[in-house]
C-alpha cells in the first residue's frame, strides 16, 4: 500500500511539474472571455445574463454568457480570490479589446493563476481514475491521464472549464461504484450546474441503478441529480435559457437524415442505440463507462465539434484503455480526429496562436495552412474525422462485447 501511494506521489510530482511548465505559456481567447464575464461578480452583478443584455453597447466584449449560473459564480469567486495577486494590470487586460487584446505586461502571471482551478480539477480527475481502476491497472491509468498530450492541450492550451463538469461526472461514477447513490446524483448535479452536457448521462445512471438496486435507490439518485442544478438556476433560469446562447443543442441536432418523411437527428439515433445496448447488456461499471464515452463520441460525430468537448469522454476512455492496453488505438484515433477538426476551424488560436504568450507576433503571422484549409478542405477534414470516430465507436463496442471478456 505504502509503495503504491509512494509511486503515485512520484507520478503526480512529474505531472505537476509538466503542468507548471505549460500553464503560463499557452493562451486561448476563451480564458479571457470567461473571466471577462466573471469579473462582474466582484462588482456585485448577480444576474450576468441580464447585465450583458442591458449593457451590450458599453461593454468591450459583447458576446452573451452561455453557461449555467454556477459557472459564473465559480469563476467569479476565483476572480475575486486571485484579484489581489493579479492587480491593476489584470483589470486592464480583461477590459482591453484593442489591438493587443491577447497579451499584457503580466500575461504569464495571469495565465498561471487563472488556470489554477483547472489544474486542481485536472489532478483530481487523475486521482479519481486511480481510485476507480483496479490496483493492477491504476498506475497505468494515472500515467495515461497525466501525460496525455490531448488533455494537456485541452486543459492548458484551450483553457476551457470543461474539465470541471467532466470531473463531477467521473466523481458520480466513482460514488456509484462505492454504492453512494444519493451523492453520485448530487455530484452529477454539480456537473450539470456547470455545463449542461452531463444531463445526457442521467438515463444511463438510472438504468445502472435499476439493474443493481431497487426503485427507491434510483429515486434517491434522481433527487440528487437534479438538486444542485435546480437550486443553482432557481432564480436565473428564465434569463439563462432565454438570453444565453449555447451552441451545444443546436449543433448536435444539426446533422439529420430522412427516415420516410421525418428528419431524424443523427445524434438521437446514436444516443438511443447506446441506451438500448446498455439496457440489454448486464450493466456493469465498464458498460456504464463505455456508455458515457459513446454518448460523448456521439456528440462529436455529426458536428464540427468544439475541440474542448473531447475532454468530456477522455477520462472514461483512459479507464478502458488502462484495463485493455490494446485499445490505445482509440486514443490515437481520437487524437487524429481532434487534429482534423482543429484544422477545419481555420482558427489561429487553436493551433499556433496558443503560443502567443511566447511569441506575441504569432497572432499576426499569416498561417497559410489555415487559409488553404478554410477554403478547400474543411468538409473533407470533417468527413474524415466523422468516419474515423464512427469506426472507433463500432470498434470499441465490438471489442467490449466480443473480445473483452475472453481476455479477462
Amino acid at each position, binding site marked *: 500500500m505504502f509503495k503504491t501511494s509512494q509511486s503515485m506521489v512520484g507520478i503526480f510530482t512529474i505531472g505537476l511539474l509538466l503542468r507548471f511548465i505549460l500553464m503560463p505559456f499557452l493562451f486561448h481567447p476563451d480564458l479571457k472571455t470567461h473571466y471577462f464575464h466573471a469579473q462582474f461578480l466582484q462588482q456585485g452583478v448577480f444576474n450576468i445574463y441580464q447585465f450583458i443584455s442591458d449593457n451590450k453597447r458599453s461593454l468591450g466584449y459583447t458576446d452573451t454568457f452561455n453557461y449555467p449560473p454556477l459557472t459564473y459564480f465559480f469563476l467569479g469567486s476565483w476572480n475575486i480570490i486571485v484579484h489581489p495577486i493579479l492587480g491593476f494590470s489584470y483589470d486592464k487586460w480583461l477590459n482591453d479589446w484593442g489591438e493587443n487584446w491577447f497579451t499584457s505586461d503580466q500575461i504569464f502571471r495571469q495565465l498561471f493563476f487563472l488556470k489554477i482551478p483547472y489544474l486542481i480539477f485536472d489532478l483530481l480527475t487523475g486521482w479519481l481514475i486511480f481510485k476507480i481502476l483496479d490496483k493492477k491497472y491504476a498506475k497505468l491509468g494515472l500515467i495515461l491521464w497525466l501525460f496525455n498530450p490531448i488533455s494537456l492541450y485541452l486543459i492548458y492550451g484551450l483553457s476551457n472549464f470543461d474539465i470541471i463538469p467532466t470531473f463531477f461526472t467521473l466523481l458520480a461514477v466513482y460514488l456509484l461504484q462505492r454504492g453512494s447513490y444519493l451523492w453520485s446524483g448530487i455530484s452529477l448535479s454539480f456537473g450539470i450546474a456547470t455545463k449542461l452536457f452531463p444531463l445526457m448521462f442521467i438515463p444511463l445512471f438510472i438504468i445502472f441503478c435499476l439493474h443493481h438496486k431497487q426503485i427507491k435507490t434510483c429515486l434517491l439518485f434522481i433527487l440528487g441529480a437534479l438538486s444542485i442544478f435546480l437550486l443553482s438556476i432557481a432564480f436565473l433560469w428564465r434569463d439563462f435559457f432565454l438570453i444565453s446562447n449555447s451552441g451545444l443543442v443546436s449543433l448536435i441536432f444539426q446533422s439529420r437524415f430522412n427516415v420516410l418523411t421525418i428528419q431524424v437527428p443523427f445524434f438521437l439515433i446514436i444516443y438511443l442505440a447506446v441506451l438500448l445496448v446498455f439496457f440489454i447488456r448486464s450493466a456493469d461499471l465498464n458498460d456504464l463507462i463505455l456508455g458515457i464515452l459513446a454518448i460523448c463520441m456521439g456528440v462529436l460525430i455529426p458536428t464540427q465539434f468544439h475541440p474542448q468537448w473531447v475532454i468530456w469522454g477522455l477520462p472514461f476512455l483512459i479507464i478502458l484503455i488502462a484495463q485493455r492496453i490494446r485499445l490505445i488505438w482509440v486514443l490515437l484515433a481520437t487524437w487524429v480526429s481532434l487534429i482534423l477538426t482543429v484544422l477545419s476551424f481555420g482558427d489561429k488560436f487553436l493551433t499556433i496562436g496558443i503560443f502567443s504568450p*511566447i511569441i506575441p507576433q504569432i497572432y*499576426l*503571422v499569416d498561417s497559410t495552412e489555415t487559409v488553404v484549409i478554410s477554403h478547400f478542405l474543411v468538409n473533407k477534414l470533417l468527413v474524415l474525422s466523422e468516419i474515423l470516430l464512427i469506426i472507433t465507436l463500432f470498434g470499441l463496442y465490438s471489442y467490449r462485447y466480443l473480445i473483452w471478456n475472453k481476455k479477462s
Partner: protein
Amino acid sequence: MTLVLLTSIIAFIGAVGICFVYYSKEAPIFNQTQADKSVPLEKNQPWVQLLNIAGRVSLIEIRLNNIGIQNHDRLILQIKDSQGNLLRRLIISGSNIRNDEWVKFKFDPAVQLNGVSNLEITATELTSNSPVYLFMNNQNQWNLRVFLELPILESFLKVKQDFTDRFNFDRVFATIYYLLLVSLIIYKGIKLYYGK
C-alpha cells in the same frame, strides 16, 4: 511512462518548432491598424507610404475596401528604394479584393530592403464607378502590415531574447515560478535518491 512523457514533450517541442518555422517565414515587423479614414484609389494617382525597414520582406498586407466587389480593375503595388529605383512590382485585380479586407501581397523571393524605401499603390485604370478604397490614419499612414523572412537561427534568438525580457519583466512572478519549479525538481530528486 517514459514513452508517454516523451510523446508529450515531443508534441510540445514540435508545436513550438512549427511556430518558429512560421515565424521565421513571416515575422511581423510593422503593424499599423489605426483606421481614421479611407481614400479612393483614383486612376494614375499613386498613394505613397514611406517604409524604414532593413531586411527581407516576404509579405505585405494592406487593408483595402472594394464595396460589393464591383471594381475589377488592375492595381499595381511597387516597392522603390530611396533613389526611386524599382525593387519589385505586383499586380492585382480588383476581383480579388473584397469588402474591407487585409489584402496579402506575397513576395517570392523576398525583397531585400536596406532602410528607407517607398511603397506605392496605383490604380492604372478605372472602368467601374466604384473605386477601391485604402484605409489610413489621420497622418495618412496606411493600414499596413509588413512581414520579414528571417533565418531560423536569427528568429530563434530574437524570439528568445524578447521572451526572456518579457518573462523577467514581472520579477515577482518569475521568482515565484522558478522557485516552484526548482522545489518540485529537488523534491522529485530526493525521492528518487531515497527510493533507491
